[in-house]
């Protein structure tokens, strides 16, 4: 028995078994639970009831910021702050400012996307209780896990354990927080 339990972890051998179990866990009404898989299992989001990722919104903000940065930077530098005549071309035109703004749109979107992904995932987090489970290394190799947190309102050591075992989970263990 763990002194300060974090929750229960159950092992599954195949993505199919995990998927069927995940559907049942969701139907049982659990909210604070998770699956650990070595690769993204197709359709598991739906089985778990995970909503569409919010990363695209952050990306969009990044992209708009990048485009505006490019346009305003070029306007400021070549038209406002220090205009120089080159080849009789206008000091500012959105046409020649476009390639640079376009590249900055992509650059800022990339940073926003990756930053947003880390932010929404709460990473980096190097000391998560799940990582202390002795067999967790198989979770980045070839096994699949379901973790149900103690913080879940429906969590009950005996009942939750029975549910996970009934769903085909082997080695249902308590995690130390």
């Amino acid at each position, binding site marked *: 028995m763990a002194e300060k339990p974090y929750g229960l972890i159950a092992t599954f051998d195949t993505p199919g078994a995990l998927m069927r179990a995940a559907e049942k866990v969701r139907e049982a009404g659990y909210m604070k639970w998770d699956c650990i898989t070595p*690769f993204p299992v197709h359709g598991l989001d739906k089985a778990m009831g995970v909503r569409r990722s919010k990363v695209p919104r952050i990306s969009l903000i990044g992209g708009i910021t990048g485009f505006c940065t490019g346009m305003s930077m070029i306007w400021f530098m070549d038209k406002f702050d220090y205009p*120089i005549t080159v080849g009789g071309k206008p000091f500012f035109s959105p046409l020649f400012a476009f390639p640079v703004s376009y590249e*900055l749109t992509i650059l800022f979107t990339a940073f926003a996307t990756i930053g947003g992904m880390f932010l929404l995932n709460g990473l980096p987090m190097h000391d998560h209780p799940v*990582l202390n489970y002795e067999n967790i290394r198989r979770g980045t190799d070839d096994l699949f896990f379901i973790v149900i947190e103690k913080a879940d309102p429906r969590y009950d050591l005996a009942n939750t354990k029975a549910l996970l075992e009934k769903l085909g989970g082997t080695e249902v263990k308590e995690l130390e927080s």
Partner: protein
Amino acid sequence: MANALENNDVPAVLDEVRPAVKPRAELVGHGRSFSWITEKICGIAEEKTPVWWWWCFITACIVASFTVAGITYLVATGVGVWGHRSPVNWAWDIVNFVFWIGIGHAGTLISAILCLLRQKWRTSINRSAEAMTIFAVVCAGIFPVFHIGRVWYAWFLFPLPNSNYIWQNYRSPLEWDVFAVSTYGTVSVLFWYVGMIPDLATMRDRFNAVGKTIRARIYGLFAMGWRGSSRHWSNYEMAYLILAGISTPLVLSVHTIVSFDFAVSLLPGWHTTIFPPYFVAGAIFSGFGMVLTLILPLRAIYHLEDLITQYHIDCMCKVILATGTMVGYAYAMEFFIAWYGANPYEGFTFINRAFGPYWWAYFIMVTCNVITPQFFWFKSVRANTALVFILSLFVNVGMWFERFVIIATSLARDFLPSSWGYYSPSIVEIFTFFGTFGVFSVLFLLFIRFLPIMAVAELKAVTPQADPHAGHETPGGHGHG
């Protein structure tokens, strides 16, 4: 391959027109398991450094020293040590820059465009192709940076406040290129790194399991505490998809902007609207050539035949065939437009390219780029790995000569015969370019040694057993047929 239709009751009217079930190509041979894939790929970085690696690494370092020597001499003396003379003020440096940047493009194409097109065969080669992209951009960057002469002023390229209070000229395509290439380099690194996070976590856990805590900590630091959570995968996959989505216009824009460096000028032979698509096709063509040049030896050394199957090689050869044919079409179309446009200077430039003093470069270019890929029509050629490797080398050579032909011949003889010239490289230029192959190889060898050379998580996801419905409805059959 089990035919699902045979098991079901087919309505009588459809009895005669049963659709053919085409077996899907196996992406992982011999039905390898998840743990086999992990062991195979991570094992390459974990094993004791092989002897061949040291020999290659030392050789690569010696070759790379040529670049170091060439650049040191250039910085100590001046840009005059290169063979550039008026009228040819852009020569090998820009040729090499475009050559290396072009090679990089196949990496982004594989990781981004093929991801959007759901071409699952990309999973075996995307990691090493992305590494190739980054190292190629590193090699490319050397040339323009040192071509500016006083390299310690290279930061003038970027909009940083300086004591002259003057800003960059955004009306010039060269400044666009600064942004295009630096964005390309940055996004390529980010894309590569994000793709690697789950695999770094795998390596962290494997090092932990065998008690190598220092290495586990280093890999763990970069793995950001990844634990394979499904909720994380959901955001991760979305982020990866967006990165693929933005890298696609990025890769197309980068070589378009590189081509603007030429197309926006008024020089006959450069000032053409065909340049952007022509450059992009050429870049992908050369990049796939380089991917094959790198992957085929890796496959042989590490016995990766189950992960890089004949199907993968076929696909790459076909991309080379398609893009090579596009490049050939562009060569023909350039000639046609030069004649049809009735501009005497433009017409002369193209006759001069093919029959003037640089005829030999044009001949090599056409032979390597137009004729070489046509061999890939034949299945027996694609199945002959050694031959594919040799042909891929020809592609690399041909694309270098393409850039040389475009840049040097157009500048050497433009408008007034009184200002014509002939360009030959100096030994310093030759050394510097030769050395970049060493720089590239050093980086690539380090990559092989320390990082997972294939996307382990993605490879697992394309195996038949990764499908959660596999063996569910049709026991023993492939679920994804």
